[in-house]
């Protein structure tokens, strides 16, 4: 199968970006990506844009805002979407664009402007990522769905609220070292445990931030990638799985079928297993989601996700470092940007360019895991140096 390499990465600062609109955020990421790749934008043949919400963007075809503002027209561009996993859909479509032979240099951009809307509005829009017809009418919010997953995990495996909080403490520790992170400050277990309840058992510090931001990567065919730089990182495994719309229909409420499916596809395609992964970014929209991801990705046996983080095994130096960029939890979660930002982080780690204190030593194989809604879509991507 065709090889596709990453030859450029760009990332805006995540946060409450009152200084920048959706298109201006995207420009910021594209400029840094083009600079990193050292390729003029005029050489790029095609683009895929991820933006999760029309409504938050006040626009149909929000990708046109990005294409217009970076001056990309009349070249091909379209939007890929799967809620919070939109960024990974764009990465996947970018890969297909090249592997199909349609283009050999493709820009992938993810962006979201979320903080203009009020918190109840954002809660409303994100809540619709679940089953808006049969579950949303019960006051179900986005945290509510994950709260139900957490409650089921606690009942089945004895997972504790302290273990959930340990995810937050770890991710804030690394986020504090990431200049692009939304909230660059460490938190204590006590602080996390005593924060107010959003949807029991999830507390404020179990929930990711609502952020503005953008990220971009430049993908190239094998021949072009090798010409452009000595160290392309290869996008070697792609997996995409889906799950039932209603949480009620999940056979096992403590696992995301979509992740298991996506991980299986990606490992097979890359010819590796979970034990080969040196560094991972997983979708910690809520702390419980990171624990479930450990298990679904095969980083530990079922039910042992809580102890894994509690014992520091997902810190640098542990068995498998996870979310050493701060994760969605502390780096922030501008939904459309997230999947692309995950690719940026893994490439950074594999190039050895992460900031001091959060670089995983000798990282040759990286994995990203990106979930849409409460498991309706999951993408798993594997990146390798060789």
């Amino acid at each position, binding site marked *: 199968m065709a090889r596709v390499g990453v030859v450029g990465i760009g990332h805006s600062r995540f946060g409450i970006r009152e200084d920048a609109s959706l298109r201006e955020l995207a420009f910021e990421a594209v400029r840094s990506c083009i600079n990193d790749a050292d390729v003029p934008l005029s050489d790029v043949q095609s683009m895929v844009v991820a933006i999760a919400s029309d409504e938050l963007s006040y626009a149909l075809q929000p990708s046109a805002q990005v294409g217009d503002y970076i001056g990309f027209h009349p070249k091909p561009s379209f939007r890929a979407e799967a809620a919070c996993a939109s960024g990974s859909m764009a990465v996947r479509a970018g890969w297909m664009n090249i592997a199909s032979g349609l283009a050999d240099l493709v820009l992938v951009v993810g962006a979201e402007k979320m903080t203009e809307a*009020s918190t*109840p*509005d954002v*809660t*409303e829009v994100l*809540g619709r990522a679940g*089953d808006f*017809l*049969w*579950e*949303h*009418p*019960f*006051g*179900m*919010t986005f*945290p*509510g769905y994950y*709260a*139900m*997953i957490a*409650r*089921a995990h606690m*009942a089945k495996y004895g997972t504790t609220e302290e273990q959930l909080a340990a995810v937050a403490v770890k991710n804030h520790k690394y986020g504090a070292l990431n200049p692009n992170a939304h909230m660059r400050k460490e938190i204590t277990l006590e602080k996390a445990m005593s924060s*107010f*309840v*959003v*949807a*029991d*058992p*999830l507390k404020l510090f179990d929930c990711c931030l609502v952020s503005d931001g953008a990220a971009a990567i430049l993908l190239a065919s094998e021949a072009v990638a090798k010409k452009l730089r000595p160290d392309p990182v290869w996008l070697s495994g792609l997996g995409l799985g889906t799950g039932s719309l*209603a*949480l*009620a*229909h999940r056979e096992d*409420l403590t696992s995301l079928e979509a992740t298991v499916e996506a991980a299986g596809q990606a490992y097979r395609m890359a010819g590796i297993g979970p034990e080969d992964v040196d560094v991972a970014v997983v979708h910690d929209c809520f702390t419980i989601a990171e624990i479930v991801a450990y298990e679904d990705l095969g980083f530990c046996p079922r039910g042992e996700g809580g102890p894994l983080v509690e014992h520091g095994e997902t810190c640098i130096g542990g068995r498998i470092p996870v979310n050493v960029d701060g994760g969605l939890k502390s780096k922030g979660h501008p939904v459309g940007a997230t999947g692309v930002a995950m690719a940026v982080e893994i490439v950074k780690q594999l190039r050895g360019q992460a900031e001091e204190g959060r670089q995983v030593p000798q990282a040759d194989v990286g994995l990203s895991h990106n979930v849409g809604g409460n498991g309706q879509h999951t993408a798993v991507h594997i990146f390798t140096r060789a």
Partner: protein
Amino acid sequence: MQFRDFSLLVRDTKVRGFAEGLERGELRASRCVGCGAVHFPPRSDCPTCWSGEFTWEPITGTGRLITYTLIKVPPRHFAPDLTQRAPFSTYVYAPTAVGLVEMEDGLRVMGWVCGVAAQNLHVGMALTPKPEVLDDGRATIVLKSEGC
């Protein structure tokens, strides 16, 4: 655009009979005429045998709570100060618990938990799903404990 109420949402579709059932106090699943599969939430098309013919049957009896949460930060359509229009269920139920019960035949029903103090909720407890018409005239689904 505003969130619309539950009954309205299903009224425009082939499962509108569900809304009619709710209003009559009946919680209904749909059964595929082609292969006999029973669905809740109800469906009107079968992805197994591709039949589009379904009949209604009531969901009765008691189920077991398999998970739950207490929503403390409600979405906009349940936040009383932020919208004048209270859809489907009014906020009086928030922050009451929302639960998911599994019936004996395996069907699962999501609803508001009624008559159980938050600290007494536990996975495995018996609850009975029932439709309930609220004082604003709109119907919802409630999971009732014994004696509630």
